């Protein structure tokens, strides 16, 4: 006979995020549910095949309706669905479901409820001010703030700001405002000669040159429903 050795572990416990169908019911009318389920699944009879399914009760949580979970389990079985539990619902619903051998799933968290409390409003950061020419190959990034440039921005230079960009000189390079997706960011330029303008990732290049009516003009650039608007003064 062999001696006793330390047994190999017979199982391992792991967490898994498995995909799961949830059937949200709006009332407890068994006849209606039965009829509509049959018509809905008539086109694709094999859509469910021994597929675990959860019954969503969020919509009826505040009502007094009662469910016959045993009958529902049988009904859904016929369509290949294996009812394994309920999600949400009232305390009575949940008690009845446990009685019928179903498990309980917590209600999906509401989208709008903030997970973290609002942080105390931060002091706005002062803008990044550049008073020397920004030259080819140079890149200036104003993180979490506005960028103010008082000297020329040459072709091949790049301005990036999470806030607005102001250039009180000719802008001949690239300017990207709202770099982290702030769609209300704007670009203000004293003389528009840019290679590229972008707000919140919505950009415009000027391969054919800048349109006559805004070229070398003071302009502001803003986003109007995903469309870049260049407005001259």
């Amino acid at each position, binding site marked *: 006979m062999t001696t006793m050795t330390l047994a190999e572990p017979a199982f391992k416990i792991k967490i898994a995020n498995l995909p799961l169908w949830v059937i949200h019911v709006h009332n407890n009318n068994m006849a209606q549910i039965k009829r509509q389920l049959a018509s809905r699944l008539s086109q694709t009879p094999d859509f469910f095949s021994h597929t675990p399914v959860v019954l969503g009760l969020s919509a009826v949580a505040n009502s007094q309706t009662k469910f016959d979970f045993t009958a529902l389990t049988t009904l859904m079985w016929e369509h290949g669905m294996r009812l394994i539990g309920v999600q949400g619902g009232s305390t009575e619903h949940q008690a009845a479901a446990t009685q019928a051998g179903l498990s309980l799933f917590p209600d999906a968290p509401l989208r709008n409820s903030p997970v973290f409390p609002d942080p105390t409003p931060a002091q706005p950061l002062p803008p990044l001010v550049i008073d020397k*020419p*920004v*030259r*080819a*190959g140079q890149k200036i990034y104003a993180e979490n703030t506005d960028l103010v440039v008082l000297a020329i921005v*040459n*072709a*091949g*230079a790049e301005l990036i700001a999470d806030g607005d960009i102001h250039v009180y000189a000719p802008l001949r390079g690239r300017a990207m405002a709202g770099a982290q997706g702030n769609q209300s960011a704007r670009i203000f330029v004293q003389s528009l000669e840019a290679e590229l303008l972008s707000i919140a990732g919505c950009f415009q290049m000027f391969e054919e040159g800048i349109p006559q009516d805004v070229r070398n003009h003071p302009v502001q650039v803003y986003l109007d429903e995903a469309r870049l608007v260049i407005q001259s003064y």
Partner: protein
Amino acid sequence: MSKIIVVTSGKGGVGKTTTSANFSSGLALRGQKTVVIDFDVGLRNLDLIMGCERRVVYDIIDVINGEATLHQALIKDKNCEHLYILAASQTRDKDALNLEGVERILNELRESFDYIICDSPAGIESGAFMAMYFADHALVVTNPEVSSVRDSDRILGIMAAKSKRAVEGRAPIEEHLLITRYNPKRAEAEEMLKVEDIEDMLRIPLIGVIPESESVLFASNSGIPAIHQKSDVAEAYKDVVSRFIGEAVPMRFVSGKVGFLKRLFGDR
């Protein structure tokens, strides 16, 4: 206090070495003790343009490596009393230069020279970086064409960010724009950029305009810098030197229109 001047451009073939040769000769002709250093290790040219290629025994790398003293490596110019040349190495590569070695050489040269001219190689790699790192002034040599202006802009940006003065937060390198190979008539015909266009793009003070001329090629091939001959280019470089040492000299060779009287009595 001696001054270190880098002659740079970013782009190759615009006239850095020609400018280094003429500018240093011009300073020496004015009685200033001047040394010109070729930083283009591996592609040395300055010795050819200065006509001293047969007298190069030791070069800057030998001095950095301690294989020769500065005194042994400095070559006295044959045309100017006060000018010396420190040649680049032909046989080593650019990695042989290092900041400590360059600084040591420059500090030693500061003791006996008024002006130290550093002829930068093209590009933005280590050779160009070494040449500009310790500079007090920069002559930015630019041709009247967009690619040259773009590269000058790039090198100006690098100097503003990475030079020793910038790193230590001292007053920035004094920048001077030198436009070379300028042809006023072709600029007028919009075949090349105008002086104003280049000034508008680079926004640094203009120190001179060197006209496009056959005499530069001739001077390079003969090993005697153009400033020693009689030509527009020689006059233009002399003007640059005068402006650099603080004399007010009107800008010449920027206009293509030469009037009848002007032709008769010459350009004053």
